[in-house]
């Protein structure tokens, strides 16, 4: 594989501009998101529900440290057929349909506009403006599988996989500059796209937005099968065991 020599103009006019553009767009995105973001209101009901679930879970995990009576009392409070918490608290399944719920709709749109749109626009522009260039070379050798990833827009079968085209360099920058953003903008910044993509997958942790009744049912079942194994059975004997030996030995 012959050593390719890149024109040094490429360094000044392609390599660095792409880095600078990605970086600045990220920062602009951060501030725009802050301007456009709406505060998320947590419902009282949601908090109460999530706290009740936490309490029930703790009862299941650590109930063996309580006297049997107390444990049964609490289990009864949660699970009883007529008066139990999980049975009587009926919640409307608040299925936030993205199509009909206006606030969710605007949130989604804002998210799309600030994140996806710039990426597409700038990606496309770079592809058009800097097409056909090889921008840089990664310093380590790579296998052929990396070629489609790193050489978008440059289809040369014989080209070494270490070479990176301009469009791919742009994408590498988008992901690579994340740590730079946290240095400059502080943690938790809106320019961090991958985090946003993660958020879309995991969903909110605080309230129980989607289906409290389902969560209640699951918790009810889990609590129902839970039995009370008292952890304190015979604990006194454990504590005084070394001394009992001494007393018995002495009295002999």
């Amino acid at each position: 594989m012959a050593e390719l020599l890149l024109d040094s103009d490429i360094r000044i006019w392609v390599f660095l501009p792409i880095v600078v553009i990605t970086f600045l767009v990220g920062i602009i995105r951060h501030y725009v998101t802050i301007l456009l973001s709406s505060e998320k209101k947590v419902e009282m009901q949601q908090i109460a529900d999530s706290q009740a679930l936490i309490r029930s879970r703790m009862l299941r995990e650590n109930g063996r440290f309580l006297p049997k009576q107390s444990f049964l009392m609490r289990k009864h409070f949660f699970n009883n057929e007529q008066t139990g918490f999980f049975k009587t608290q009926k919640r409307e399944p608040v299925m936030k349909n993205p199509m009909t719920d206006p606030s969710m709709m605007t949130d989604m749109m804002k998210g799309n506009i600030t994140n996806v749109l710039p990426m597409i626009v700038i990606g496309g522009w770079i592809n058009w403006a800097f097409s056909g260039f090889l921008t840089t070379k990664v310093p380590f050798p790579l296998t052929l599988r990396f070629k489609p990833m790193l050489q978008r827009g440059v289809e040369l079968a014989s080209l070494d996989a270490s070479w990176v085209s301009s469009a791919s360099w742009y994408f590498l920058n988008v992901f690579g500059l994340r740590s730079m953003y946290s240095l400059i903008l502080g943690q938790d910044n809106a320019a961090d796209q991958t985090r946003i993509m993660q958020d879309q997958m995991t969903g909110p942790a605080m309230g129980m937005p989607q289906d409290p009744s389902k969560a209640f049912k699951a918790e009810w079942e889990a609590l129902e099968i839970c039995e009370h194994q008292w952890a304190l059975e015979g604990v006194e004997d454990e504590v005084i065991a070394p001394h009992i030996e001494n007393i018995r030995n002495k009295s002999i």
Partner: protein
Amino acid sequence: MATCTGWQDAKDRLKKIREEQRRCSDEVVELWEDILWDFSYKLGSEEWIIYEQVCIAACDCGRQGVALHCLGLLQTQFPNSLRVRYLEGLIAESSADYGRALDLYNTILKEEETNSLVRKRKVAIFREQNKIVKAIEELNHYLQQYMSDFEAWLELCDLYLHEMDYSKAAFCLEELLLANPYNHILHQKYAEIKYTQGGTENMELSRKYFAQSLKLNPNNMRSLFGFYLSASCLAQKGATGKTKKDNAEYAKAAWKKINEKYQMSSIDETESKTELLALQGMLESLQV
């Protein structure tokens, strides 16, 4: 008291206190007055949060002037903020203007129902005014929604103990045990409440929980004494022969252990002898 050399140091120290959520209000106010007040223009992005921190610390120390100064600055910057109104309520509380504080908190709650800090402040106000029953009522209402708030259960337990309602206090402590099952002090406290309630069943529970506390921390002298007391009480009132014998063994073992601990801790020979004699006398007089 840490000695800070310069505003940078002071700022870092305040940040550390904020992050660790420690309550060293004296230090905060001192740092503010000595160092940071003159350098407030250098605080940068942390300016407002430092004002908030100093305001709360000043209320804690009773330094009205400092607190009002910080409040004024925050109010000019954030005129309609609920957080600033909360600070205003804190200052009103610290100057014993409870009516005004309650009004402020109620207005905050009207706008932001889920603010748990404000609800807890209301309970604190009732407690300060010695309206324990009202405080208990308010706290119960709070706990119906925030069921797993550890601090709130602890406070409710304290309030019930104040009212000498031991069964309810025991209930609150059970909640705490669920949250922190490996905390030996909680077990000890629960055992003490059960011991106070009295009755054979409670006494047995108390003995068990003292033992558990000892298992978690063998150096807990209070639990050791508690264990001895509950065991000897049961030994004297024990119905059947077996429980009487068991309890007598427990009591004897506990007594031995107490003696050992006292022997280990004392340095001087003669001092240890007099201490042990005193201990023996005390233990014999403690026989219920």
